[in-house]
């Protein structure tokens, strides 16, 4: 029976656990709301991961980790376009730019980060392809899944709690009367605070600041708890149609109807 289904019924953490226990080899393909992720495994261990159109090449990973500078990254992209990651890795090690450990640790970090981002996906479908192995031209790692699963479960619990507190990111924020003076905020918190305005939904704030759903929820939760902001309906949001609220559209008749209800309940 093919391993396929919906993330609403089966979480990423549960899938990783299953792959780990069965020591599976193959690729987990997850089609999320806006992008696709490919996570490859060898004998139940994480080997490779890719998300959307993100450049997960060795050069990009090392550049992001500040192991090579922007000029070196550009030069590699220009001159070593046809080179596989394995060849590039050897070249960089031989040239003394990085060590083998640098390469493996940074790739492990990047692949783990990709999987970590998947933990916040609640919508999407998945399938496990036994025949799809990690790409040959990319460097594979062998990473135990246990720690990733534990971290995923923790994140999932946190996400569920945050979703209870902030059910929809389509709500906006406004400042309360409490002044913002003497408040120590982190850089990410300031990024959110800068856009606090009843015109901006939390989804827009997250997208502008390139924050994930869980990151923006975590920050907003902190601001809510501190009493600095409150949730409001976005100013420009269309009011949902509520045509049947009153059986009449006449304002005076509507008031009369409410007064009748008041009178009736008073005499009950």
């Amino acid at each position, binding site marked *: 029976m093919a391993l396929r289904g919906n993330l609403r019924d089966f979480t990423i953490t549960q899938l990783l656990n299953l792959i780990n226990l069965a020591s599976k080899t193959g690729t987990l393909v997850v089609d999320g709301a806006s992008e696709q992720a490919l996570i490859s495994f060898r004998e139940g261990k994480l080997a490779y991961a890719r998300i959307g159109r993100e450049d997960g090449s060795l050069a990009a990973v090392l550049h992001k980790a500040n192991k090579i500078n922007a000029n070196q990254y550009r030069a590699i992209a220009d001159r070593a376009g046809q080179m596989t990651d394995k060849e590039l890795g050897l070249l960089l090690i031989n040239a003394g730019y990085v060590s083998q450990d640098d390469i493996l640790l940074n790739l492990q970090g990047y692949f783990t980060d990709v999987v970590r981002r998947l933990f916040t996906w609640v919508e999407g479908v998945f399938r496990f392809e036994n025949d799809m192995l990690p790409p040959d031209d990319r460097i594979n790692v062998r990473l135990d899944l246990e720690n990733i699963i534990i971290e995923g479960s923790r994140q999932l619990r946190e996400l569920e709690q945050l979703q209870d507190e902030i059910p929809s990111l389509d709500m906006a924020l406004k400042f309360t009367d409490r002044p913002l003076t003497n408040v120590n905020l982190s850089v990410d918190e300031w990024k959110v605070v800068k856009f606090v305005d009843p015109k901006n939904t939390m989804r827009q704030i997250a997208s502008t600041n390139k924050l994930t759903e869980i990151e923006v929820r975590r920050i907003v939760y902190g601001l809510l708890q501190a009493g600095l902001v409150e949730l409001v309906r976005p100013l420009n949001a269309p009011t949902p149609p509520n045509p049947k609220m009153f059986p009449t559209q006449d304002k005076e008749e509507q008031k009369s109807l409410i007064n009748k209800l008041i009178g*009736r309940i008073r005499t009950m």
Partner: protein
Amino acid sequence: MQTVKMVVTGPFSAGKTQFIQSVSEIDVVATERKISSDEERSVKNATTVAMDFGRITVDEDLVLYLFGTPGQKRFDFMWEILSEGMLGFIVMVDSTRPETFREARSILETFRAYAPTPFVVAANKQDMEDAWEIEDVRNALRLDKSTKLLPCTATNRDTVKTVLLELLYSILHEMESGK
């Protein structure tokens, strides 16, 4: 025949069904089912899975329907459907179970997002010894001073009437202020 409706919502076991029963002139049409979870069964034996439905006839031309929402989160797909066309809503919270306050707050925000209609919060089971005081409930739910938080005992018809009246006053006030 003209009909209008109000929605009574709140966490599991907040007292929504009892609230409606106290004022409904018909036996509440309830869709209760036995509870499967041990944790929830320790609180009560049956819960609403679709809706409760009560009726107050004003005269031969006007009827008020009261809809109670299912309290368990897995039935929350019903909430949006029930909120369509409501005059306003009541959020019930069990004053003796602070562990449900966070969920009550979340339900309140969800309903506010569905429709910008007036609402009141009813702090139920105020007759119980271990009930939180009203102002403590207000702080725990992070309600501002302008939000009506009313003491209530769902089995007591008078307190239920007061909650309904306060919601109607809020609706009238909003109409008169042209909001």
